[in-house]
């Protein structure tokens, strides 16, 4: 039943993707009147974060890209292994950055055509990569949306897990990992007995189908102390919090959330115009590039370095827990995720039924979306939940080893991120297609 539901969801999303590509290419080129921009930038992102909060990685589970890839692989099975040098998260980090940049540079939210081109590009990328390389290469190393979901699903209430450890201990075939002639094993190299939490898991259900002992299923996610679970060895992933690529991913996830929201408010436009005037070069690509460097490199480097230095000073260089830096970095994930959720839910809730007129169905204007006056407090509440979660992780990391004051630098950092985000979300949005040089 579950497997059929997954297949059904994949086929539905594949047809929907095809329709949205067609709409984007040939439909009306005004974003609010086109289902491509409407569903991709409003509904898909909203449903994605709601799915992560209420269940888990549902949209990876129903990913139509994987279905398209599987169809291709039936015709032409891949044979090569993904190069050793690229067996890390940097390809996904690069694409994550690229998508954020293209979103701003091409105003993807305002362009059905470019939205369709992006969708075509994503399908082409998975077909190219997984058409050449074996296993779940695209999902594991390349997919930016998947990596967003991996981090978001760390806090999901459910995960796929083993039912009884004793059964795994007596298992000799390890079909969940290696598969069998009839069934695939985990394409992302997660070995169920050592799997911790949702990171790296696409909820593809292959392991559930592969296990000959019916010992794998959905269960409550017991790895919500992410500062602990990510600091332990996990199957197929190693010790995540210590991995440099994972640390970059966390920084991008957190500061990218702020940048993505900041890109839609007046001060961002003013800043870019002033910068363009200052250097005398009216190039949006240039000003955006500077903004990205500041938000994703300079600001994180300065803030994290300062917080770590402050922690070190206040602890008088007495650091019994040698992993405190990497654990504190992990504490940025909840606040980062809450900023994404607050942003995406704003668009989703305020315009949840705005697609009806596009379908030719009349719908009362007053019920097309939740009023901003209702959504704004929800956004603030979500960011505060993220903030308190992050503070909780800071406390867990430092409280047992140090005096309370040692927590001040990192807690201050989280407060700064939360307050800055709330300030952004309370600014009126200024969604402009073009603003530099007309």
């Amino acid at each position, binding site marked *: 039943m579950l497997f059929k539901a997954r297949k059904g969801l994949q086929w539905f999303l594949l047809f929907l993707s095809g329709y949205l590509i067609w709409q984007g290419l040939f439909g009306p080129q005004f974003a609010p*009147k*086109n289902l491509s921009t409407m569903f991709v930038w409003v509904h898909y992102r909203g449903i994605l974060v709601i799915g992560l909060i209420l269940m888990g990685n549902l949209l990876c589970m129903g990913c139509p890209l994987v279905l398209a890839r599987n169809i291709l692989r039936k015709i032409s099975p891949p044979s090569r292994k993904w190069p050793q040098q690229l067996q890390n998260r940097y390809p996904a980090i690069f694409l994550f950055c690229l998508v954020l940049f293209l979103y701003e540079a091409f*105003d993807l939210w305002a362009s059905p055509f470019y939205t369709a081109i992006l969708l075509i590009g994503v399908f082409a990328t998975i077909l190219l990569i997984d058409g050449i390389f074996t296993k779940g290469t695209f999902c594991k190393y390349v997919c930016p949306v998947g990596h967003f979901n991996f981090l978001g699903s760390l806090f999901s209430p459910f995960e796929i897990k083993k039912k009884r450890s004793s059964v795994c201990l007596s298992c000799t075939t390890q079909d969940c990992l290696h598969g069998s002639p009839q069934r695939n094993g985990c394409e992302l190299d997660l070995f169920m007995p050592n799997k911790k939490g949702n990171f790296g898991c696409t909820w593809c259900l292959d392991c559930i189908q592969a296990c000959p002992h019916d010992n794998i299923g959905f269960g409550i996610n017991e790895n919500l102390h992410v500062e602990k679970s990510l600091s332990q060895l996990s199957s197929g992933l190693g010790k995540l919090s210590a991995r440099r690529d994972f640390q970059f991913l966390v920084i991008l996830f957190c500061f990218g959330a702020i940048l993505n929201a900041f890109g839609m408010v007046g001060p961002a436009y003013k800043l870019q115009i002033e910068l363009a005037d200052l250097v005398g070069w009216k190039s949006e690509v240039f000003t955006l590039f500077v903004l990205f460097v500041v938000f994703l490199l300079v600001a994180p480097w300065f803030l994290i370095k300062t917080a770590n230095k402050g922690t070190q000073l206040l602890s008088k260089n007495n650091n019994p827990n040698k992993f405190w830096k990497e654990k504190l970095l992990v504490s940025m994930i909840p606040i980062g995720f809450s900023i994404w959720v607050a942003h995406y839910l704003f668009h989703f809730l305020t*315009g949840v039924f705005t697609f009806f007129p596009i379908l030719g169905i009349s719908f009362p204007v007053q019920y097309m979306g939740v009023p901003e006056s209702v959504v704004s407090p929800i956004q603030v509440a979500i960011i505060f939940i993220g903030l308190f979660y992050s503070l909780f992780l800071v406390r867990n990391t430092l409280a047992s080893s140090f005096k309370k004051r040692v927590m001040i630098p990192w807690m201050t950092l989280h407060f700064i991120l939360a307050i800055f985000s709330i300030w952004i979300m309370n600014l009126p949005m*200024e969604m*402009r*297609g073009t603003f530099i040089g007309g």
Partner: protein
Amino acid sequence: MVSGCKQQTASLQNEYKVHYSLKSNKLSVGETDFHFKVSDSKGEMVEVRDFLVEGNMTHPGMVPVYGESKKIDNGQYLVTMDLTMAGDWILFISFKNAEGQIIKKELPLNGVGSAF
């Protein structure tokens, strides 16, 4: 036949021109009064009916706003719209000519400032 119909529709749409001016100097979030003028190809005001204005943000998923139209003279309408957000807007205008044919126009409304 199809192209003939399209040509006829296009030329009919081009027969009418719509301009607007603002009652206030400041274009910002909140209730805004627009003075619309509908003219024919010779530039003369023409009598039209069912004059409707719909405002949309350039971002999808934003609830459209509809203007309240009040006829003030032949081909002239005062329309009050509650612009809910700063940024770029598109105004979709539709009306019927004397023969009852529907005419549609799109006008940009760029740079709506914040209320503060």
